[in-house]
């Protein structure tokens, strides 16, 4: 008994040592800045005095009481929500089609799907700006075809941001759903077919419900990434369509009101965390007895 316990303790100690480098990196790069931001958010800022190390909740009260910030938060979460829904609607069938493909085509097309992730966000977003501008490719083409008289406004609208975000985020959804599809027994589809189900019924009644955990975890990733995305809304939304992350950026770099920027950043973090945790809770309650 005693030697076994000793070996056990030894193994556990070794595990900790093996984790140490990663843990140190995590502490230095993630926790320390986060704590410093948190502390900063309680300080105050005067136009002539700069940052003063006071300790109060005034920054939070300012944000929470100001309809200007309410609108920015609402817009941010609205964009994230629509992006998530579109990604689920596009990514789920896409993952299923990939899953059903012959392996030769599949690896090529998987690369195409993951493609957007291989290009820098800034480059990709500038590409969308070229497409969506008032004199961009889409509007010029439509006008030359005389389908429209006046350019459709796409730049500097939430719609434009959503389109570009969906483009970036779909791969995350595809990968999450893809993984869930691979966990299911392929014979369930055959079973449904032998019982008389057509392809659509099989997809909606047999495949999709089993892939749902993947859709839901993919949604979580897409939602949190979209809510905190910076480059895409900054380039396509500019000053006119502000979201939380661009607002934080402005507070830090233009207004120089670091404490207020920090408070907004912390509020965004808390809001996203709240959404994630409550969502997880609901999902778990729904699926624990079925999939576990």
């Amino acid at each position: 008994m005693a030697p076994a316990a000793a070996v056990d303790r030894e193994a556990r100690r070794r595990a900790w040592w093996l984790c140490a480098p990663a843990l140190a990196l995590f502490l230095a790069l993630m926790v320390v800045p986060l704590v410093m931001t948190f502390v900063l958010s309680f300080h105050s800022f005067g136009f002539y005095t700069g940052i003063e190390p006071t300790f109060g909740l005034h920054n939070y009260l300012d944000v929470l009481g100001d309809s200007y910030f309410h609108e920015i938060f609402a817009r941010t979460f609205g964009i994230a929500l629509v992006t998530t829904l579109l990604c689920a609607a596009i990514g789920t069938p896409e993952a299923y089609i990939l899953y059903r493909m012959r392996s030769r085509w599949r690896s090529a097309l998987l690369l195409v799907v993951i493609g957007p992730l291989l290009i820098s966000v800034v480059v990709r977003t500038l590409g969308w700006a070229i497409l969506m501008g008032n004199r961009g490719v889409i509007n010029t083409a439509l006008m030359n075809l005389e389908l429209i008289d006046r350019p459709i406004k796409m730049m500097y609208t939430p719609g434009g941001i959503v389109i570009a975000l969906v483009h970036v985020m779909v791969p995350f959804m595809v990968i999450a759903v893809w993984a869930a599809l691979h966990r299911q027994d392929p014979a369930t589809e055959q079973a449904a077919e032998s019982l008389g189900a057509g392809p659509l019924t099989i997809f909606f009644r047999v495949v999709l419900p089993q892939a749902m955990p993947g859709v839901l975890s993919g949604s979580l990733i897409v939602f949190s990434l979209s809510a905190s995305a910076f480059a895409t809304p900054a380039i396509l939304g500019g000053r006119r369509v502000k979201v939380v992350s661009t607002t934080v950026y402005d507070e830090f770099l233009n207004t120089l009101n670091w404490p207020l920027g920090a408070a907004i950043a912390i509020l965004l973090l808390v809001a996203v965390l709240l959404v994630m945790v409550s969502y997880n809770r609901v999902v778990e309650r729904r699926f624990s007895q079925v999939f576990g």
Partner: protein
Amino acid sequence: MAFLELKGLTKRFGEIAAVENFDLSVERGEFVSLLGPSGCGKTTTLQMIAGFETPSAGSITLEGRDLLAIKARSRGIGIVFQSYALFPHMTVAQNVEFGLEMRKIAAPERRQRVAEALALVHLEALADRYPRAMSGGQRQRVALARALVIRPEILLLDEPLSNLDAKLREEMQLELRGIQQRMGVTTILVTHDQTEAMALSDRVAVMHRGRLVQVARPLEAYEHPRSDFVSSFLGKTNRLEGKVVERAGERAGDLCRVAVGETVFAAPAPPPEIGKDARPRVIVSVRPEKVEFRAAGAGLVDGTVAARIFLGDHWLYQIETPLGVLLVTRQNVGPAEVETGGSVGLAWDAAQVRLLPFEETA
């Protein structure tokens, strides 16, 4: 015209032929097992009947109708998969109900038929469970109920019992056979377990490397295998390489004499498969339970007892003889007849010897 007819059925995957020139007719209500070692094409055959694989050649007809012209979803075939393939997100009742919903049967009748099917497999009490919370045997029953509730023309079972432990497997075999007979549903079972095939089926179809080698009633296949492969695959046997040394007359029941090494003994007349050679090489097969003990020197061949293994209801002896190591089994009805290390004579009735066409290896 048989109920289900497979004619010249062939399936090639690129170069390799998984199933080749497969002919089988199954009568209505019959229980047929496809038996063979792993990779011999059993699942592929079943998948072609179900409609999940398209044959490279050949035909499948059901009561004269061409089954290949019908989509898998419209064939009305019930299937129990090896993995059961239950829908994990549906309760037991919903799983069973699925096929009835697809047939657009009205809700009240659906409910009644689901209840009947669950009663058939003794699962009424678990109708609202999810498959995850069930044992292997229970899942097996759900899969069976789900396949039977649609009143299929044919029931296909792909190694349905291979995931169950030995005791449960035996119970399920009896139950499966009972249900099949009560429903009268034409059934094809795929298995690599020869005892299971013999216990359950009206006829066994033994497959080897994609080909059908013998179709017969279990007793017939066991007692009169037509090839070395069937003889070795169905049960245990003593397989000896020998030669016919004296061909008697051509009438059935005539005895001939075969030599295995130095030992010469009587055997039934060689079957036609062996050919017309005067002294053909043959495989001689004697089942272990057909071998009897004699006093040393009083049998056909003498040997020493190398091992004696107790197997509950019977003993298994390994006897070293000039012919090689022979297996002998004895019912456990009294004290063991011979001791390890003792010398014994072995004898067998000439009528129990089987001569099979010579093949290099089984």
